[in-house]
C-alpha cells in the first residue's frame, strides 16, 4: 500500500484524453492571464486546439487505430476506458468545440468576453468525460459536481443581467438539492451492497437477488434516489421544472452547450450505474431489472409533458427547452430498455447514438437562435423566424434541417437516433413506451415544422448576424446532422463495440 506507485500501476495512459484535457485546462487558465482583454480570440483558439487534440485522442481508440494504456481499467477500476467512454468523449468534445465556436462572437456582443468562460467550459467537459468513464459511484458524484458547478457559473455569466443571475441561482439551488438526493442514493446503495464500484455492486446485487436478502429494499430506495438525482440533470419529468427558466435566462451560447453536455453526462452515468451495475437487479428472478418500470414510466411522462407543453411556447429558447425535456424522454426509453439484461448492450449503444445525433442537432438549433438574438437578449420569439428564408437562405435551410432532425424525419440524424432507441425498446418488450414515443414524435412535428413554416411561407422583418465562427458551427452541425442521417453506419460503427456487462 505504501511506496511510490508507478505510472504503469495507475494505467494513466488509458485516461489519456481526459488527463490531457485536465492538464490543458489548468495551463490554459494560466496562459489566459497573459492574454490581453482585447485579444481573447487567442484564448478561444487555444481552447479549440486543446479540444481538438483531445478529440483526436478519443477518436483514435474508437476507430481502432490505437489503444492507449494496458487494459480498460485505470486507477484501480475507478476509471473505465472502454468503447462506451470513448463514445461519450467524442460526443462531448464535439459539443464543446461547437460550443466554443458559437460562444466567441456572442460573448463579444454581450460584452462579457472573458477567458474564464473557456476554462469553465473545459472543466465542465472534463466532468462529462469523467462521468462517462466512471467505474465507481464516488467518481460519478465528484464528476457530476465537476460538470454542474461550472455550468451554474456559466448560467450566470451574463452578469449583471437579472435574467441570467436568476437562472444561475435557480439552477444552483435546485441542482444542489438534486446532488443531495444523489448522495443519499449512493449512501443507501453502499449500505445495501457494501461497495461503491460498479463491478462490486454487480456482484453484490447478484448475491442479494440469489439470497432474496432484505437489503434489496434498501437497494431499491437507493436506486430510486439516484434516479432522482440524475433525472434532474437530464431534465426528466417530474424533475424538469428548472429547465425552461434556466434555458431562457442563461446566455444562449451556454445553453447551446449545456443542453447537450448535461444530458450526455447524466445519461452516461445512468447507463453505467443502472445498465451496468444493477442490470441484474431482478426481484422476481427474471431478466428484467426492478428499476425498469420506473424508468419507462418517467420516460413516457417526460415525452408527453415535454412535447405537449412545447406546443404552446412562443419563445424559441423556451420551446427548445421543452423540446430538450421531450428528448430526455426518448433517451430514457433507451435507459429503460437497458433494464432487460439481454438487450442491455444494444440499449446502451442506442443511447450513445441518440446523444450523438442530438448533439449536432441541438447545438445547431441554439446556434441559429444566437444568430437571430439581439444584443440585449431579445428577439428570441417565434416571430423572429418569420421570413428568415428570404433574408438568410442558408441559415434558414440549416434551421430546417435541425427542426427535421429534432422531429425525427428520415435522412436526418434524429431519425436514426429514434430508430435505434425504439428498436431497443421493442427488443426489450417495452412496446407501449415505443408507441408513446412514436405518437409524441408526431405531435412534436407540429411545433418544429411550424418554425419551418414561419421561415419559408410567411414574411416578416427577420434579422440575423452570422459571424464566421458561428457560420462554421452551424454548417458543421448541419452537415453532421445530415451525414449521420444518410450514413447511419457511421453511428453504428462507432458504437458496435460497446459492452457493459460484468461477469460471465
Amino acid at each position, binding site marked *: 500500500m505504501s511506496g511510490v506507485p508507478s505510472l504503469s500501476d495507475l494505467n494513466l495512459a488509458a485516461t489519456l484524453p481526459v488527463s490531457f484535457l485536465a492538464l490543458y485546462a489548468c495551463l490554459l487558465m494560466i496562459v489566459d492571464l497573459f492574454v490581453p482583454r482585447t485579444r481573447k480570440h487567442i484564448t478561444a483558439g487555444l481552447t479549440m486546439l486543446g479540444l481538438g487534440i483531445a478529440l483526436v485522442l478519443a477518436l483514435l481508440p474508437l476507430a481502432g487505430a490505437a489503444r492507449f494504456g494496458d487494459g480498460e481499467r485505470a486507477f484501480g477500476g475507478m*476509471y473505465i476506458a472502454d468503447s462506451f467512454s470513448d463514445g461519450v468523449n467524442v460526443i462531448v468534445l464535439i459539443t464543446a468545440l461547437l460550443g466554443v465556436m458559437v460562444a466567441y462572437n456572442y460573448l463579444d456582443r454581450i460584452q462579457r468576453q472573458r477567458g474564464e468562460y473557456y476554462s469553465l467550459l473545459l472543466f465542465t467537459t472534463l466532468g462529462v468525460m469523467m462521468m462517462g468513464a466512471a467505474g465507481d459511484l*464516488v467518481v460519478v458524484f465528484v464528476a457530476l459536481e465537476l460538470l454542474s458547478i461550472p455550468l451554474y457559473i456559466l448560467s450566470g455569466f451574463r452578469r*449583471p443581467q437579472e435574467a441570467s443571475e436568476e437562472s444561475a441561482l435557480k439552477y444552483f439551488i435546485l441542482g444542489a438539492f438534486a446532488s443531495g438526493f444523489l448522495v443519499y442514493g449512493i449512501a443507501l446503495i453502499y449500505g445495501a451492497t457494501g461497495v461503491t464500484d460498479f463491478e462490486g455492486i454487480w456482484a453484490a446485487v447478484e448475491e442479494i437477488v440469489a439470497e432474496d436478502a432484505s437489503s434489496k429494499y434498501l437497494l431499491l430506495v437507493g436506486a430510486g434516489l439516484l434516479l432522482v438525482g440524475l433525472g434532474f440533470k437530464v431534465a426528466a419529468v417530474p424533475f424538469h421544472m428548472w429547465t425552461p427558466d434556466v434555458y431562457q435566462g442563461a446566455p444562449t451560447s451556454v445553453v447551446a452547450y449545456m443542453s447537450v453536455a448535461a444530458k450526455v453526462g447524466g445519461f452516461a452515468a445512468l447507463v453505467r450505474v443502472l445498465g451496468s451495475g444493477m442490470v441484474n437487479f431482478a426481484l422476481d428472478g427474471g431478466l428484467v431489472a426492478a428499476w425498469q418500470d420506473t424508468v419507462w414510466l418517467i420516460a413516457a411522462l417526460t415525452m408527453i409533458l415535454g412535447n405537449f407543453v412545447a406546443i404552446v411556447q412562443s419563445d424559441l429558447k423556451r420551446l427548445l427547452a421543452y423540446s430538450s425535456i421531450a428528448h430526455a424522454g426518448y433517451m430514457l426509453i433507451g435507459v429503460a430498455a437497458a433494464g432487460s439484461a439481454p438487450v442491455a448492450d444494444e440499449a446502451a449503444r442506442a443511447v450513445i447514438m441518440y446523444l450523438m445525433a442530438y448533439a449536432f442537432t441541438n447545438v445547431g438549433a441554439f446556434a441559429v437562435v444566437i444568430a437571430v438574438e439581439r444584443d440585449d437578449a431579445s428577439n428570441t420569439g417565434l416571430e423572429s423566424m418569420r421570413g428568415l428564408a428570404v433574408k438568410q437562405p442558408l441559415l434558414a435551410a440549416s434551421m430546417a434541417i435541425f427542426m427535421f432532425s429534432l422531429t425525427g424525419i428520415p435522412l436526418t440524424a434524429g431519425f436514426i437516433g429514434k430508430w435505434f432507441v425504439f428498436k431497443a425498446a421493442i427488443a426489450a418488450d417495452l412496446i407501449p413506451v415505443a408507441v408513446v414515443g412514436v405518437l409524441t414524435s408526431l405531435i412534436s412535428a407540429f411545433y418544429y415544422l411550424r418554425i419551418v413554416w414561419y421561415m419559408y411561407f410567411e414574411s416578416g422583418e427577420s434579422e440575423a448576424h452570422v459571424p464566421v465562427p458561428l457560420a462554421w458551427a452551424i454548417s458543421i452541425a448541419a452537415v453532421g446532422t445530415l451525414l449521420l442521417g444518410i450514413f447511419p453506419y457511421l453511428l453504428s460503427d462507432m458504437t458496435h463495440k460497446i459492452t457493459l456487462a460484468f461477469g460471465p
Partner: protein
Amino acid sequence: MELTAESIVFLIMSAITLGGGLLVVSARNLFHAGLYLMVSLLGVAGLFVLLSAPFLAGVQVVVYIGAIAILIILAIMLTPSVTQLPAIFNRQWAFNLALAAFFFVLLVSVVSPIMGELGVDAWNADFTQKNPADVPADSIVNLGKDLVDPDKYMLPFEVASVLLMAALIGAVLLVSPDKAKADEGGED
C-alpha cells in the same frame, strides 16, 4: 476525591460545552448566540479527543464548526432584523424548560445503568477511553492513505481538486467588479 489530569481536562471541556450551551439560549444577540454555539461544539470536539476518537473530533470541528455553524451565522447576518432579540424568554419558555428537563432525566436514566460498564461510575476513574484498542484509532491515518492510494480514492481526490479550482474561479468571477458594467448602465 482525586483529580487526575484527564478528569481536569474533562471538567474543563464539560464546562466549555455546558457553558457555551447555556450562553446560546441566554444571549440576547442572536449573532452572539451563534458564536457561543461554536464554543459549545468545540467543547464536544475536545471530549471526543479525550475519548481517543480523533476522527470524530476532526469531523466535529470540520462539519459542525466549519460548515454548519458558519451557515447559521451567515443566515443570521442575512436577516439583520432578528439579530437583536427584545427578550430572552418568550411565552414557551416554561414548556421548553420542562421538555429539556424531561430529556435530561431520560438521558440519565438510560446512561446510568451502564455507567459501571463504561468505567465512569466514580469521580476518580479516568475519564478517557479505558481500552483505546476498542476504538479504531488509526481511522484518520487510513482515511488519509486511502485518499491518495492509487488503488482507492486517488482519482476522485484529483477530480475534487480540479472541481474546487473551478468553483474558486467561479466565485471570483461572480463577485469581481465588471469593467463593462459602466458601459452598459441602466441595468437597475
